[in-house]
């Protein structure tokens, strides 16, 4: 796995951004990510299975997320899902992206567009 500088990964695609954001809050499996993103964005971002796992594979390879132990308190005891969490590097990239977005919003706000 090669270490690329964070800037090369920005801007993140919507799918990547939301997966990173969702997993930064805690360990989840794929479908849980989809539900969380869909509720949070009020149905605007709908992740399909293929899109989601394609992004997960890519993020995993880039070292931004990693497979994690299933949480103990999962409602289904012997869950058969793969669980993921955001890595340290993933958090850094997410932070860089959020700062980038914030700068854009600030710019717009300064010109009274928002």
């Amino acid at each position, binding site marked *: 796995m090669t270490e690329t500088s964070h800037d090369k990964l920005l801007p993140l695609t919507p799918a990547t951004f939301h997966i990173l954001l969702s997993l930064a809050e805690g360990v989840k*499996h*794929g*479908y849980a990510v*989809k539900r969380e993103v869909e509720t949070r964005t*009020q*149905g*605007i971002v*709908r992740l*399909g*299975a*293929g*899109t*989601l*796992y*394609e992004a*997960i*594979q890519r993020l995993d390879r880039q070292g931004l997320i990693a497979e994690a132990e299933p949480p103990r308190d999962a409602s289904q005891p012997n869950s*058969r*899902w*793969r669980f993921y969490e955001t890595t340290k590097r993933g958090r850094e990239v997410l932070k860089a992206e959020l700062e980038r977005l914030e700068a854009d919003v600030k710019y717009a706000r300064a010109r009274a567009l928002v």
Partner: protein
Amino acid sequence: MHRRYRLLLLVYPREFRTTFGRDFCQFLARQRSEPRYRSVFIGATRFWWDVLADAVRSGMRLRARNMAGAWRRRRHPPQHPGRREGKLIISSVLQDVQYGMRSMVRTPTFTLIAIATLGIGIGANTAIFSVVNGVILRPLPFSNSHELVMVWRLNDRGERSVVSWPDFADWRAAARSFAGLGGFIEATRVFENDGGADELKGTSVTANMFSILDVMPALGRPFVEEEDRYGGPRAIVLSHGLWTTRFGADSTLVGRSIRADGEAHTVVGVMPRGFAFPDPTTRFWTPLREDEILRRIGVTSSGRGLSFINVLGRLDAGVAVAEAELEMTAVAAGIDAAVGRSDSTRVSVQPRHAYIVGDVTPLLYTFFGAVGLVLIIACANVANLALARAAGRNRELALRAALGAGRLRIVRQLLTENVLLAACGGLVGLALAFGLTRGLLALGSESLPRHAEVSLDGTVLIFTALVALSSGIVFGLVPALQGGRPDLLASLKDGGHGTGLSVRGQRIQRSLVVAQVMLAVVLLMGAGLLINSFWRLTSVDTGFEPQHVLTARVSLPETRYGDDEVVLGFFDRLIPALEALPGVTRVTTSYSPPFQGSEFSQMFEIEGQDEVPADELPWGRTIIVGPGYFETMGGTLVQGRDLESSDRKTAPPVAIVNETMARRYWPGEDAVGKRFRTPAGISGSVESLEPRHFERDWITVVGVAADVRRSSLAERESPEFYRPHAQMTWPGTGLLLRTVGDPMELAAALRREVWAIDPALPVTSVSTMTDLVAASVLEPRFRTLLLGIFAGMASLLAMVGVYGVMAYTVAQQTREIGIRIALGAPGAAVLRHTLARGLRLTATGVLLGSAGAFAATRLLTDMLFGVSPTDPATYLGVVLLLVGVAALASFMPARKASRIDPVAALRSE
């Protein structure tokens, strides 16, 4: 259960499958049970659509990424040797593609015909699919639109109907299944401008409507609670379109006051561009206020019998439509008990999507099925062509096989060529679809809801790609399988000639033609029935003379024309002024001229007949007309006299009844001189006004008129009575002018005369009566035309098929026929023999097709008028037509066969 999902995984590279296969399937299983996919048919379609679109997109991305990886590895040679095999496959595919392109160029006629045929088939499919996609499959343009539902009261005939104000208020207070429940009704307002006035269409909505739809104004605010209360401040929200065209997109307009219907309204907001509720023709919104509506309908108090509100709700998250319906039925039962209503109210909750597109769904799927058949026929044609071409290449293929190409390799190469052809056909189809979709929308905009949302988007492109690919595989498979097993020895021994098709190949070819004819018969039967039915519909006698009649509407605003005498005074000035215009012979008014869409009914009671309970009283359509109505419209008075200007308010009330009413309520008697009466007040299209408040005066029948068609040509006769405008004054009315020449030439003069009396009056719906009648058959015309075009395409393609096979057979048998002629067979016998072969094929197809049509045309039952789905005349006509055309298609090759010169035929071998 998961097996179907496993199949989908094949889209992805192996590595992805092993890592994510299980999660992927679990994901889809969970997704399938989400509420938005719950409804039986739409839900499943939408689910598979979403999933397939996603799989194709992500699969292509993954594969592309792997491919790019493979290229990189090629440039930096791999450490392990096992990769070479993969490289070989890629390079051999490229080789196939190159080879395929070369053979396409080598046989340009074949290539062009194949591409054009496929292009037509794929183009028609893409066009129809883009309509199906935009109208049916795509969710409504509101967030979580599956939660939006219409809530109806079911009337005693089980039809969905609007709701009364008190019921609506009680529903709102009691319902628990909804995040919000709102009401709306159509509202028109007159906006004055310099030198004239326009009547615009808007909608009155309850204050919570915008939050139910989850769309906020782009400028300003939505309505607030006190604005939809009794006597609240007058507010208005403008559509983006109205704001731009009429107010120059002035952003300081919000908060200011504008005049509508002569009253000041504060502009509180402007909706975002593209917001369309309940449909795109709505230009503004006003608060739905009970007092406002009652004033407009012309009644003083509203009861539970006066229904006018459309109810729209947003279901709480996770509440199913059926649960909400159950709850609402219980709520309604509670209300029934509280108000002592004897018959229980039933409630229907219907997804808004189904409400909007429900009526058009079967029609669109019928079209979709029809173009599907056209594509299959097109594919069969190309398969036949490809089969014949492959036969000519037997030797080439045999040679390649002899040089060591495996069977699979040859099949793959043929398949690649065909997929390549199909891809070209797909591109041509896409280009065609652009034009076709536009034409389709122009023809069908009256009949298609949401037509503004139709576009060639990503989904449509994926569909086209899939259709092209699968048709390439379908028509490519036939010759590929045939060509995949070349008879090596025979081909090479045959001295260099193409051997022609094997017995098996010829059998395939013939079966394809039979199938083509069969499908064409099914389509032709459908189209034939629709054409027959359309012809019957348009030759229905309207009962009046629509030629040379100009119609228009004027609405006199309540504020200035509140008094009946003022209204009548206006028309007393206008009508003589119009009649004085050169080219106008007679002018009259009618509240509901035929085919204009505005009409209302009243209950009535016949004098001297047994007392009937109030809710069993008969209903009749009330037509308010001015003097000389029958003369102007060219209607027939069977008995009695026309209504005249002497039938004033002070004179005894009179009416003319139609023949149906006369026959039904005074059977075997002379209706003239008989009397009936109606409830007091004008009740619009109110369903059941509280009865018993009848006018004290009986209305005397002074004439009997012949029945006319009023709202559609297909309608049945129902009781109608004509009342004089002077005795039943209504501030809005239609104007009818009988003219000598083209009625439209008088449109400008008509406006001028109205504005000469009152410059602030809008003159709307200016049209000729002939156009109105024609507009009423736009929808049947649309479907008849479309299905007719598809059937025409299908028959043409099928006939090309018959011709192709016969021509090929004759060419193949030149030598055999030559010998027979040399042995003394007369040309006529050869001709007859060949013709008979072509007709035998056609007859088999026609026979099978008739059986298929017998089953399929049942789907059209609801669209037919005066024709049964198994109408023998239509069947006979279609059979004769097809057999005739097939005879023509086989005649040319047959004649060629009969003229074969035996010497030349034998020498050529």
